């Protein structure tokens, strides 16, 4: 397959995952502004920071304001990080790699684009927002489902999967990076309303509220949340899960090509950290430092995959 095609698949699925994650973030922000209006402004700020768009938002719109932020993240044509821009970029990549996609996958991504183009043509009214966010999550799930059900398990599929998990782990890590301080064992304000809000943001923004309930019951404990999002291999949005998958997918490519590449060693180094450490060791090392290391390592891995498989010249 062409290097460009590998890159196109990787980015198509990254953009889809990113749009879906942004929808989760808006959902978390909306929830808090509806239920805890006093905490809304600081939570919106941290959501903007997690998406990496705080700077461009402030430059364009100034102080955080719920409706403005929602429109900015959903559909602002001047925001290349908006959901609409992400879906457009995913579809443009899909057009480039069209010969690598099954008809089902192409139709799912094209329909995702057509539907969102329609529902995001105008600013979304408050009453329609939950439904619109649901459409984003649903349409992106359709593409994932079509890929899962119809794509041959070869290098193409593996590059697509690597893009998905790479972006997902990145998203989880950025939320943790914003909120690490409330997960530290030294936090003594357990049970205070403000902490509950922040924990709720974390779980909602990763769509893991329900999974947390199932696995850990109703008691919200910051140490358990940290373990859950970083090390729990059962949770499909945890860093350990995503990197386990990236390692597997890279391994399948190496096996298919009969050659291991430098990126395989980098991925293995990241995976081994998740295997070797428990939460106590991570807290001893420093949670913030651990996540900072992870973000740096994953950036390096992304660059190495691009070089090893010749995404561009």
């Amino acid at each position, binding site marked *: 397959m*062409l*290097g460009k095609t590998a890159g196109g698949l990787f980015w198509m699925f990254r953009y889809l995952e990113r749009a879906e994650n942004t929808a989760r973030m808006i959902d978390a922000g909306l929830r808090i502004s509806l239920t805890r209006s006093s905490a809304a402004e600081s939570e919106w700020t941290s959501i903007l920071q997690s998406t990496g768009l705080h700077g461009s938002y402030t430059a364009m719109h100034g102080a955080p304001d719920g409706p403005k932020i929602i429109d900015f993240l959903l559909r602002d044509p001047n925001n290349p990080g908006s959901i609409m821009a992400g879906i457009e970029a995913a579809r443009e990549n899909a*057009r480039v790699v069209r010969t690598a996609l099954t008809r089902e996958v192409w*139709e799912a991504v094209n329909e995702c684009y057509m539907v969102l183009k329609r529902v995001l043509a105008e600013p979304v009214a408050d009453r329609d927002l939950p439904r619109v966010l649901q459409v984003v999550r649903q349409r992106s799930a359709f593409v994932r489902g079509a890929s899962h059900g119809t794509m041959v398990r070869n290098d193409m599929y593996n590059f697509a999967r690597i893009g998905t998990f790479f972006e997902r782990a990145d998203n989880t890590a950025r939320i943790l990076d914003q909120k690490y301080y409330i997960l530290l064992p030294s936090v003594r304000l357990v049970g205070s309303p403000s902490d509950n809000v922040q924990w709720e943001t974390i779980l909602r923004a990763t769509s893991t509220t329900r999974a947390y309930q199932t696995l850990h019951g109703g008691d919200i404990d910051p140490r358990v949340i940290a373990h859950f999002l970083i090390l729990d291999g059962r949770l499909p949005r945890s860093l350990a899960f995503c990197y386990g998958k990236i390692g597997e997918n890279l391994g399948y490519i190496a096996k298919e090509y009969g050659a291991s590449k430098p990126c395989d060693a980098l991925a293995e180094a990241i995976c081994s950290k998740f295997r070797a450490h428990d939460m106590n060791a991570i807290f001893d090392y420093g949670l913030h430092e651990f996540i900072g290391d992870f973000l740096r390592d994953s950036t390096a891995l992304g660059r190495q995959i691009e070089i090893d498989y*010749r995404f561009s*010249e």
Partner: protein
Amino acid sequence: MVNKPLYFDEMFGHGTDARLPYEAYCKWFNGEDNARLLEKSEEAEALFRLIGVTFNVYGDPDATERLIPFDLVPRIIAAREWAKVAKGIEQRVRALNAFLHDIYHRQEIVRAGRLPAEMLARNEAFLPQMIGVTPPGDIYTHIVGTDLVRTGDDAFFVLEDNARTPSGVSYMLENRETMLHMFPELFSKIKVQSVSQYPNSLRKSLSACAPPACDGKPTLAVLTPGIHNSAYYEHAFLADQMGAELVEGHDLRVVDGRVAMRTTRGYKPIDVLYRRVDDDYLDPLTFNPDSMLGVPGIMDVYRAGGITIANAPGTGIADDKAIYSYMPDIVEFYTGEKAILQNVPTHRCSEPDALKYVLDNLAELVVKEVHGSGGYGMLVGPAASKKEIAAFRAKLEANPGNYIAQPTLALSTVPILTDAGLAPRHVDLRPFVLVSPDKIDITPGGLTRVALTAGSLVVNSSQGGGTKDTWVLEE
């Protein structure tokens, strides 16, 4: 229905009863409800949009991806009618290839006085870089789209020979798929010759033209200018259907004397490149130095037998409209036979007598640019206003050699479906021809283009034309 007696309608002739090839279809149609068919029409549009069968319109930022309207009344051709057309096309394509070989080698046709030397010498489409070069298998036009128009029961004319990069074949295939999907019952009643073998035939035909450097199974690739090109969908579609890679210039480079594509495992040589990029952009070292769409050095590899380029560089001269006017002579010169398919009588405005006649009769004529395509820059006299004619007259007088003129043909019509039922519209036909050393393969039918505006003669998709499925019936 009422028919203007002036035009031959392919469904009803000059009368009101269905002509023989349409009998079974009309019987089915008369049992159908117009409202249901209009719904089917919308269904077809949604399907095309979902699949992404779109084209890009240059210079229109609001509608970068547009659908070509599809009309669901098929155009039907009897096996007997088609046999003659196919024979004529084969003869013409054979002559075109012999002509291209000749003008890039000994130029016997000029020596024999059948073609003026300046037709080549002053022609931008003639590539001096191709002189003395023989392409693999001696094939120049691997893919041809011969545009035909019809004026009567047995009267077909060649309107132009598209010998560089004819487009539209994906519409031919998608139109048929759509019809099969929407009206399966019709195809069990009426036996229509299949077109779906085209991508496989294209793969085989191109593979049969592999260059000397190819050892083993030829590697094919389709070269596209990229996703913003108006025919990108077709490029992706053909690559996909042939199982070939879809490449752009930046995926390619010359490695060890071969043109190779950058894959995840390193550079891999290409044997046959089906390029959908114009000559001018093919090699910045040989042609336009600013081109980002081509491959630096590909022409050197080509001349050394390292790659097949389809169609060969320099074939554009054969679909030049001034050369077109010599086609009857060209066919006779190389095949020793009279042309089976007629040319439309053509006035070369470069000749003073012809120019005078054209200027005196502008309101009756169709005037085209010699190198033009896509329906741009042409004058349809009978449909033009006085002001448009005056403006065109000035352009023509300033540069007569750039134009040819033809009488306005009484193009046949085929009905389309409208809210009020069937209504006749003018059509043309682009059959698709594959040429290899082994054979000339013509897909039965081709792409029917239809002018959707009543009375209009311009069928180009860029000018608001639509398409129809084209049926050639089984014997």
